[in-house]
């Protein structure tokens, strides 16, 4: 077996075969063997993703370990990481339903997660002050529709300026609905184009392969 075959061609063909299996199963009535095969393949995908996450955390821990070992810049923070990782992973591997493990999750991870998620409110406001300016007609459209919809949604908006409710609802349903519909139609075609190119092996960057260009534009 040549190097090129196992390093490149088989993965590409495998991608195409599995992809086509999923598509064919959807359109044509299939014998149970094929449906079961597809179900098994999809469960493989979730198992692979889970294993990949294990790999990721291991690599990250090695990185922090090296940092502590070589006393790299700001290595003391890495100790925080390693301690937190060791305690949580240790408790969790022994028993995922361990009460301390769940306590850590519920009272440390989810509040930080929620706080970080809510950072968006701050950045949205600071960005709005900076960029939502009627510099040109494009900016003006963005600005006006954003302001009207926000006013419609906050409870006091309709008291301050009653027409925002019908106007806001209209903008949300008609122009905005139409814009997103057009975009979704385009995106769906983009996905199909991507699929054809990947299945034909014309684009294989996702496998880490990038061949020399065939010619220049």
């Amino acid at each position, binding site marked *: 077996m040549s190097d090129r075959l196992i390093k490149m061609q088989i993965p590409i063909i495998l991608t195409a075969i599995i992809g086509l299996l999923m*598509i064919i199963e*959807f*359109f*044509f*009535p299939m014998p149970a063997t094929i449906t079961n095969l597809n179900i098994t393949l999809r469960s493989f*995908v*979730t198992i*692979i*993703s889970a*294993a*990949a*996450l294990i*790999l*990721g955390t291991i*690599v*990250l821990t090695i*990185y922090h370990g090296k940092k502590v070992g070589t006393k790299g810049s700001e290595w003391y923070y890495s100790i925080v990481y390693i301690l937190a990782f060791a305690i949580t992973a240790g408790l969790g591997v022994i028993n995922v339903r361990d009460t301390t493990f769940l306590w850590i999750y519920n009272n440390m991870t989810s509040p930080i*997660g929620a706080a*970080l998620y809510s*950072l*968006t409110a701050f*950045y*949205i406001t*600071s*960005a709005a002050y*900076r*960029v*939502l300016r009627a510099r040109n007609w494009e900016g003006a459209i*963005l600005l006006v529709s*954003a302001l009207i919809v926000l006013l419609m949604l906050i409870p006091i908006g309709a008291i301050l300026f009653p027409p925002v409710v019908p106007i806001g609802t209209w903008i949300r349903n008609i122009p905005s609905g139409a814009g*997103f519909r057009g*975009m*979704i*139609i*385009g*995106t769906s*075609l*983009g*996905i*199909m*184009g*991507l*699929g*054809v*190119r*990947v299945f*034909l092996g*014309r*684009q294989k*960057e*996702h*496998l*880490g*392969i*990038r061949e020399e*260009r*065939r*010619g*220049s*534009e």
Partner: protein
Amino acid sequence: MALIVEGRLIGLVSLLIIAGSIIYYMQRAYAGQLPKLRRLAAVNQIDEILGRCVEMGRPAYYLMDTVNMDTPSVLAPTVAAFQILAYTARSAARLGAKFFVPVVQGLAYTISTEIVDEAYRAENKSDELKLEEAVMYLPDGADRMYIINHMWSDGMAGAFFIGSWYHKAVIFTENAARVGAMMLGGTDTTHNIPFIVAICDYSIIGEELYALGAYVSEDPTVSSSLAGQDVGKFIALILIILGSILLTLGISIKGLLSM
């Protein structure tokens, strides 16, 4: 037993037509007949941003946000983001820009490592690459703090926000803007695209994301496939306009569409 699952005939037919025209245009390109495509400015902007980073001696970040490859709707934009990453990493290697790719999911992390490694190898700059620092796995969620902190301490000068973007879009773009980076953003998710468009210096939206992936392959036969996608758009436009006119006259084609 029916030959085709009920309600999916038209879906299959349109898929075959669209896929067929994509393949047709790619075959024609092989024979030397290239369709005339509109330039996507983003291709040049990638190099512009990286050039700025080299000039200022500061790193460029390539962020992809959600890369859960077991979710089909996320996978497609992620694969497109990998295609653009392959080009960007190679440009960065050629120009000598410091390049940083944090990834929040294991499989995407493995792929990104390979892409970046391959890119530097292709430019014979493997010795300039510290792989474990250039491509990093960060647990999904914890990346928010890591990236914000490092954006400020590194003083990054360029950023790419490409892929399937969710709530992190506004967090990262606004921080990058405040740090003073030049940004190119592109996504196909409907909920967070406004922030990408409003905050980034350059943006690509929806289908352009996939188109950029094809453009940067720098293979004219690949980008020719975009002409095939256009056939699909023409079909959609004709169906909508004709269908609406017919419906106004009292003839409905909706039954036909859901066959």
